């Protein structure tokens, strides 16, 4: 073991890499503490929790049931969407590659739909599919599907024509050509497509969960997720919550710095997310927040209070919105 | 011809003494060149023949300064290129390499490629370099292809342009690493004639690596036959066929005798290399 570590650290690349990461964490820490130490806040970096807090918060999350349930939920969605995309996408891509008429009819519509970002499908699929789970899985499926099809198509079409000719000269039938040449020849691209598709799936599932509300009230309350993220958990959790109470628990957790952070973010969030959306609700309640640049305690206190009021308004708005949706 | 510099200057004498190169990737010693010595006079066409993978290219890389050498010395015109205390030669425009797979920059036109050397060395202004490149390409019969990219012309033309790119820098030595390997026999013939014509015009020293024995005898003043790995000088055959040579030379009695002589020496090594290859595989 020591031997292994020794050889590892004799390698310049590893040494520099580890060094770079350590420097990055130190800079992060300095940045997040800058406000407290010097009173100057660089671009709001002071609002980011320091790495130590993030790690502590992460340890705090690990024993929670809801955290692991969120893993299960997200993995379930990713795997469902991904498998369905593979099952439909691979034959579809192969058919596009081998049959000219099939390609002529199906490829143009496919190309029209492909540039639409998968997330733009979220609301439509929320409307169309009966359950939230199904709509998230559908969007996940879309994310992987287009990539897989394009890769399979490209792979199948790049097969060297001389293989096909060789097989034909040995008397292979069309079906033989497909099973013995086209399919094995496409396998590498299928795996490439699957790997890339898997990456996109994770990206999409997270976004879809945030936008659709991750199976909570089904109304699109991504900010429940924000609360979790705000506590610095985003490095450890890449999945969503479907346990509403857990969010409430989180939002009650109080620590001085984190509290300020949470309230500030809530206030900012209300303004960005809902400014135009809730014209019909009391628009005047929401004013632009003053950024807490000040270094004297009194100003901070005042800021906190106003931010706190805003978060009160925010929760009352939440409740009203809930009623509207029902 | 005004440009004829004749072979009076005789610059570019290479002296390779006791060169050894050991590759040592992760503890596996591979001796590519072992105690290899040869003398190449200025303005000579020196052909290196040997079985594939024997370490000829390693020797060339040592001269060009792409690799370090483990032991021995290499001198060019009495000047030390590399030796004890200086394992790796500096890369310099006095030793121009023409690569096995061709290394014209595919993103520059033939003219830009040829003008590149003098421009970056700041020997000529970009405009002058471009003009001279155009002239030299035209002399090599590529006047109609100045604005073409290497990907658009035949491999023979690209190779000819690459030699022009080397020659525009007035090198002392031209190092060619199997430049005509992937060409068909007919194109090769034309390329040989073009190279001989270029040689007659410039008198540059040529260090030419090949497997093709006929090519070696047809082009060379001396043919150095090297052993299979590790590479050592086995035999030197002097080709006393007068220049200018034409393809008719290849059917002469003298030519066939030389070919036989070279073939005897090489065949033995080739068999050894083949057997060694079989052992390695098994």
């Amino acid at each position, binding site marked *: 073991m020591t031997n292994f570590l020794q050889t590892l650290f004799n390698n310049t690349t590893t040494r*520099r*890499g580890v060094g*770079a*990461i350590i420097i990055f964490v130190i800079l992060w820490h300095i940045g997040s503490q800058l406000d407290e130490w010097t009173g100057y806040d660089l*671009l709001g970096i002071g609002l*980011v929790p320091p790495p130590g807090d993030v790690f502590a918060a992460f340890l705090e999350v690990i024993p929670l049931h809801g955290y692991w349930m969120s893993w299960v939920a997200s993995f379930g969605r990713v795997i469902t969407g991904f498998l369905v995309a593979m099952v439909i996408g691979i034959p579809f891509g192969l058919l596009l590659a081998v049959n000219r*008429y099939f390609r*002529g*009819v199906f490829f*143009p*519509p496919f190309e029209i739909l492909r*540039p*639409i*970002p*998968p*997330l*733009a499908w*979220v*609301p*439509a699929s929320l*409307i*169309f*599919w*009966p359950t939230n789970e199904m709509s998230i899985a559908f969007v996940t499926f879309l994310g992987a599907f287009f990539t897989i099809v394009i890769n399979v198509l490209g792979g199948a079409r790049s097969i060297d024509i001389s293989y096909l000719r060789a097989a034909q000269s040995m008397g292979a039938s069309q079906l033989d050509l497909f099973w013995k040449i086209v399919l094995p020849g496409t396998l590498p691209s299928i795996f490439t497509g699957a790997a890339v598709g898997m990456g996109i799936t*994770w*990206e999409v599932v*997270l*976004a879809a969960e945030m*936008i659709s509300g991750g199976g909570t009230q089904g109304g*699109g309350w991504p900010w429940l997720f*924000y609360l979790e*993220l705000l506590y610095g958990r*985003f*490095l450890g959790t*890449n999945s969503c919550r479907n346990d509403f109470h857990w969010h409430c628990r989180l939002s009650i957790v109080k620590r001085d710095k984190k509290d300020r952070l949470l309230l500030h*973010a809530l206030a*900012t969030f209300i303004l*960005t*997310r809902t400014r135009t*959306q809730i014209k019909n609700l009391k628009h005047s309640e929401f004013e632009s927040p003053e*950024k807490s640049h000040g270094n004297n305690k009194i100003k901070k206190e005042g800021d906190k209070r106003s931010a706190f009021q805003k978060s009160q308004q925010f929760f009352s708005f939440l409740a009203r919105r809930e009623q509207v949706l029902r | 011809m005004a440009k004829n510099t004749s072979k009076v200057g005789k610059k570019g004498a290479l002296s390779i003494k006791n060169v050894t190169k050991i590759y040592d990737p992760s503890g596996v010693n591979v001796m590519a060149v072992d105690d290899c010595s040869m003398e190449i006079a200025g303005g000579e066409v020196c052909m290196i023949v040997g079985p594939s993978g024997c370490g000829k290219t390693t020797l060339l890389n040592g001269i060009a*300064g*792409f690799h370090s050498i483990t032991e021995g010395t290499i001198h060019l015109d009495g000047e030390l290129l590399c030796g004890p205390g200086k394992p790796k030669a500096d*890369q310099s*425009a006095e030793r121009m*390499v023409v*690569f096995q*797979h061709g*290394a*014209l*920059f*595919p*993103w*520059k036109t033939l003219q830009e490629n040829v003008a*590149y050397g003098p421009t*970056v*060395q700041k020997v000529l202004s970009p405009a002058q370099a471009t003009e001279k490149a155009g002239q030299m390409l035209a002399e090599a019969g590529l006047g109609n292809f100045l604005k073409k*990219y290497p*990907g*658009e012309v035949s491999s023979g033309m690209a190779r000819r342009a690459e030699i022009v790119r080397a020659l525009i820098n007035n090198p002392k030595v031209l190092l060619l690493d199997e430049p005509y390997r992937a060409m068909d026999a007919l194109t090769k013939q034309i390329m040989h004639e073009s190279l001989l014509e270029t040689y007659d015009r410039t008198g540059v020293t040529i260090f030419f690596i090949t497997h093709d024995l006929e090519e070696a005898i047809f082009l060379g003043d001396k043919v150095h036959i090297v052993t299979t790995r590790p590479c050592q000088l086995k035999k030197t055959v002097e080709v006393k066929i007068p220049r200018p040579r034409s393809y008719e030379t290849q059917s002469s009695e003298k030519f066939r005798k030389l070919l036989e002589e070279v073939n005897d020496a090489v065949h033995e090594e080739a068999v050894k290399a083949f057997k060694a290859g079989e052992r390695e595989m098994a």
Partner: protein
Amino acid sequence: MNSTAESNTVAPEGFNLFLYRTKKHFSGPDPYLTVAGVFLWLFAYWVLCEGLQIWRFTKLPGPVAISKDWFSTTPFQGISIFTQEYYDHIYVSCKRILIAFGIATGLGVPLGLFMGWSRSIRDYIFPIIELLRPIPILAWVPLSILLLPGFEGPVIFLATLASFFVTTLNAMLGVDSIDEEYFRAAGCLGSSRWDVFKNVVVPGALPFIFTGLQISIGVAWFSLVAAEMVSGDLGLGYLIVDAYMNNVTVPMVIAMITLGFIGYFSSACVRALGNRLMAWHVKELAQQGR
């Protein structure tokens, strides 16, 4: 036509070449199949939504409803090609993409090139990029809201970040893909280190850079839409979510289709720019019959 006449025929150029290609294109079945395919799909969509009114499909607007609203001067659900609002959303989204893509390219390409070119730069920066890259873009949302003031800042930041990683990595891989012999040839010809960078590293990496930029603009749209949906105040992504919140489905679909067209158009622009800058590469591929 006899053989002498044929040998005198010059290859068509310019407009004639375009005409020749068009003619050739329409002599095959492909364009007709394309039209047939698009219509078949539209028809299927119409049958499901409006013709037979199959369960669940009735919740979505059919092609007739969409086109009626889209091309009407008085759209029933608020968005059509005649309303200013529609163009406002498009303008805002495009502006954000331009800024984000510009920043990501301006930072990512040089950084990637330097990372490919210099071992030590790569050793120091690559681990940090690899550490940050797997974090899903949306996980950056709260952080970006904290870090950057205003509405535009976070949205543009998210789109930039996503395409930055893609661009950087592809530029770096592009340098890796350059054949060692070009570096050797450049060294032989007497280049300084800077000459090598300008004349070998940059042009040699261009094909990969443009592949990267194609992906990057797609990713930029992806994250822009995500960011607009979560925290925007204008833009096509916002239009989709806004329509959804207000229970109007037609603007939602219009925004989706518009996104599709603009997304396609933007990657076509990148492709065209790439082909223009890499004439040598295009011709090389054409010679290989691709």
